[in-house]
C-alpha cells in the first residue's frame, strides 16, 4: 500500500489527511510505503498520523517504510526521534 503525500502536512491539513489515510490503518499485514517526495513540511499532527499507521501495521506484523524525505522533513524526524521508529528507503 502506498500513500503519496504532497504539500504541507500541518495542523490545519491533519484531519483531512487522517481521513484520507485511514485505509492504511487496516493494512492487514501488508507493507505500507509513505512516499514523502513531495511533502514540504510535517507538523506534530502529521507525525501523529504516521505513528498511528506504524502502530497498527506493526500490530499485525506489517512494516512501514518512508521514502523520499526532503532535508526539512528529515530534520523534523531527527528532532522528534521518529527517525529511530521508522524505516527509511
Amino acid at each position, binding site marked *: 500500500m502506498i500513500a503519496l503525500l504532497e504539500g504541507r502536512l500541518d495542523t490545519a491539513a491533519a484531519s483531512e489527511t487522517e481521513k484520507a489515510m485511514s485505509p492504511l490503518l487496516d493494512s492487514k499485514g501488508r507493507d505500507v510505503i509513505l512516499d514523502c517526495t513531495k511533502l514540504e513540511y510535517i507538523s506534530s499532527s502529521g507525525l501523529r498520523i504516521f505513528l498511528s499507521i*506504524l502502530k497498527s501495521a506493526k500490530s499485525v506484523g506489517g512494516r512501514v517504510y518512508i521514502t523520499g524525505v526532503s532535508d526539512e522533513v528529515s530534520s523534523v524526524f531527527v528532532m*522528534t526521534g521518529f527517525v*529511530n521508529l521508522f524505516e527509511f528507503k
Partner: protein
Amino acid sequence: MGTTLFLGFNLYAWITIVTVLGMFTTLLFTKLRTDLVFLAAIGVLFVTGVLDAKDAFSGFSSTSVIVIGVLFVVVAGLTHTGVLQWIVKHLLGQPNSYSKAVVRLMLPVAGLSSFLSNTTVVAMFVSIVKMWSKKLGIAPSKLLIPLSYASGMGGVCTLIGTPPNLIISGLYSDKTGETMNVLATTIPGLFCLLVGVLSIIAMRKLLPDRKAPESAFEATSEYTVELLVPSDNKYIGETLADAGLLHVRGGSLIEIYHFDDVPASISENEFLMGGDRLVYAGQIDEILELKKSHGLVSADHHIFSMSEVDKNRQLRTAFVTFGSSLIGKTIGGSTFEHDNNLTLVAVARSGQRINETPRQVVLQAGDTLLLDCPPHLNVNTDRLSSQLHFFDSDQVVNIGSKTFISALIMIAMVVLSALNIMPLLQCAFIAAAAMLVLRCCNAEQAMRAINWDILMVFAASVVLGLAIQKTGIAERLAMGILDICGTNPIVVMTAICFVGTFITEFISNTAAGAMFFPIMYEAAEKLGYDPFPFLIALMISVSSSFATPIGSPTHMLVYGPGGYRFSDFMRIGLLMNLIILAANILIVNIIYPLTPLQ
C-alpha cells in the same frame, strides 16, 4: 563661592541641591547603576566649580572608605574558612516558643553583624532560618524580618559593623582630629537592640503569617515545572499513559507542547515525541525525579542527546530583585537564559497559583525562580546580581584550623583597635594581610570580595557630604532646624535623627550618614554642644531603616524567601522606626551626656 543669594542659598548651593535631588530621582526612577549616578553627580559638582579637584576626589582617599575596602578582604577570610557557617550551625538550637526563637535568632545575628557585613550575615542565615522555622513550626515570615532587623541593629554596635558608622566617624576625625573608638556605639547599639528584640516579640502579630514561596518547591499546586523530551528518549512513540508521564508521583501533567509549539491535548493516548515540552504542576522535587526515571531534561533549547546535558549542572533558587530588568517580562521572551547559560525550571509566586508555562510567566519582583545552572556559576556578576538574588550558596567550606585562625585574626583586629593600640585602618590592613598570608582566603577570593561598586558609592557619598557642608547648605539647614525646634539640644537631636531615619528608607544608609553628618555637626556646634553624642545618635538613626524593603539590602534578601509584600515592612517598620528612635535618643543622652563646648 558665589555670593548672590536666593532663598538664603548661593548659586553653588543651588547647584548642589539640584544635583543631589536629581541624583536620587534618577536612582528611584531609572535602572542606571548606582555608582555611575553617584560619580556623575560628583562630576557635575566638579565641572560647575562647586568643588575643586582636591575636594571632588577626596572621597577616594578617605580613610573610612579605604577601611571598608580592606574589611571586605578580612570578611572574605572569615567567610571562606567557615566561621559564619560554624556559628550558624551551633547557635540556633531548638527553642520551644516564638519569643525564645526570636531571641536565639536576633542576638547572634546582631553579634555577627557588628563585625561582618550585614548582607553577608543575612544571606548566610536566610536558608538556615527557613529550615529552622519549619522545624519549629513557625512561618518563616515571622522570623525573616526579625533576622534582617537584627543585622541592621547589630551593625551599629561597632564602628566597623556598618559603613555609615565608618563614614561618620571618619568625617568626625577629619573635622576634629580626634578618633572615635571602634566600640563607641556599642552600649547605645546594644540597648537599641534589646529594645528592638522586645518590640518584635511584643508586636509579633504585625508580622505576617505567610507560607514561604520556596516551600515552593515542596508544596503542591502552586508551582509549575517544564521538562523537555530529548530526541534520544526511550519513550518516544509511546503514549503518555504507557510512558507513565501523565500522572506522576507528586504532580500531574497540565500542558504539553510538541516541537512545533502546538499545544496537544492532555490525554492518555497522546504520543510522546522528541522536542516535547511537558509542563507539570505539583511537588517540585518529585516531578524532577522524572529527569532520572524518564530521561527528561531542563533546557531552553532543543536537546538531541542526553550526552549534551552537563550532569554537573545544579538547581539553584533565586529571587527577582526590585529594579530587575526581568520584571514585566517573560523568560521565554528574553535572551536571559541564553545570555547566562541558565534554564528556568520553575516559577513560584507567594500565595498565587501560576497556571502558565514557567517561561510564559510575566515576572514580578519577589518571584521565586528555580534555575538549572552550570556547576560553577558566578552569581555575583553585575549582569546577574542586578536582576536576581541567588538564595542558596554553592560554597562548601570545611571547618578546621583555618576557621579558628581567621576568627582569631578578626578578634585581634577589633581588640587592638578598641584599646587604641593601633588605628583601625592599620589593624584592618594587618588583618587582611594575615588572612592572605595564613591562607584563610586566596588572592583571587580576596579581590573578588572587594565590592568596587559599593566603594565608589561610599567615596562619592563622602564627597556629597563635603559639598553640602562647603556650600553652606548644612549650616542653613541646621539654622532652619534650630529655628523650628528651638534651642533644646535633645529636641534638635531628635528632629534630625527623625528625618534621618525616614530619609534612609529611600537612600542608602551611607549616603544618608554622609549628608546628615554636616547638618548634625553644625546644629550641635551652633547650639554650643560637643557634636559627639549627636553623631552617635545619627549613626544609629541612619541605620534604622525598617519600614520599606528597599530601606536596606538585607530586607531585600528576606523579601522573597519570606513571601513578603511591600506593606508588611511598613506595618511593623514604621513603629520600629519610632521605637528605636526613642530608645536611641534616651540611651545616647545617658551614656554620652551632652557637654557644652568650652
